[in-house]
């Protein structure tokens, strides 16, 4: 008995395209910042409140502690270039966003990110991503998302291969 294979072909094309997009751009994440002052955008004093994986209309929370949320946020802002542990630590130390993290709330909550801790933090982020990728049944390996790029020397560059968007909530009308 002959069957109409068109729906199968259409579905195959859709699945292959979805895979292609996942492989080339990586998955989509949403980083939620809160305690924004009206009129500012990702300014110092805001808090990196939560991180979500966005997939097929779902928002799946990535459970990360403060230090890892900060590192993820930093890597998400620099998706286009890999950075070594020293560069990441220096970049975060120099940024007023991370130095004054969550000060708009009146409660300072910051973490000192040292060069030596980055490698371990990257492993922990990968473990957390692994859990959400499994939950969302996304066919990707975490080492393809938080990539370690080899250099000519012995330095390793870390890069987040993903589409990261930032959203703000709990806006404050004036600085306290």
């Amino acid at each position, binding site marked *: 008995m*002959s*069957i*109409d*294979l068109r*729906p*199968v*072909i259409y*579905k*195959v*094309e859709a*699945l*292959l*395209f*979805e*895979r*292609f*997009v996942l*492989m080339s751009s990586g998955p989509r994440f949403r980083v939620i910042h809160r305690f924004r002052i009206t009129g500012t955008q990702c300014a110092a004093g805001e808090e990196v409140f939560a991180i979500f994986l966005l997939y097929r209309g779902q928002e799946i929370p990535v459970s990360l502690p403060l230090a890892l949320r900060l590192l993820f946020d930093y890597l998400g802002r620099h998706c286009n270039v890999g950075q070594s542990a020293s560069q990441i630590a220096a970049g975060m130390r120099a940024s007023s966003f991370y130095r004054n993290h969550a000060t708009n709330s009146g409660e300072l909550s910051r973490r000192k990110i040292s060069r030596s801790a980055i490698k371990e933090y990257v492993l922990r982020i990968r473990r957390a991503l692994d859990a959400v990728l499994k939950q969302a*049944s*996304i*066919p*990707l*390996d975490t*080492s*393809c998302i938080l990539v370690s790029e080899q250099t000519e020397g012995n330095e390793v560059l870390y890069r987040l291969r993903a589409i990261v968007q930032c959203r703000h909530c709990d806006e404050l009308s004036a600085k306290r």
Partner: protein
Amino acid sequence: MSPQLSGGAEMARIVIGGFDQPTAAQLAMRLRVGRHDVRICEAISDCDRHIIDLGAEIDLVVMDGTADPGLVDECFKGIADLYARRGRRPMLLCVSRVYHGPRFEMDLENKGARLVYVH
């Protein structure tokens, strides 16, 4: 996934399994028109072994779940376990001519697979 084709899609490696011979041949032919590399595996139970033997990266596995949806479910679970250690699991698609109810579809989706009904 190597040479790029128009529309962003690329030549993909596809394994199809569980279909009767004429349907498998017809489906393979239609997919090869899109310049995909298609391998046919007759029995669903042989699919995981077939995928291991291929060794290469598989992009998509298409199974016929008309006769034995449970077997397809098992096979997809096996593939998911196999690739848990390898990374980059293939996309999974189950095709059926018979309606198997919402639970079957939900179970498949929980494994990251999709379901399509044909007539």
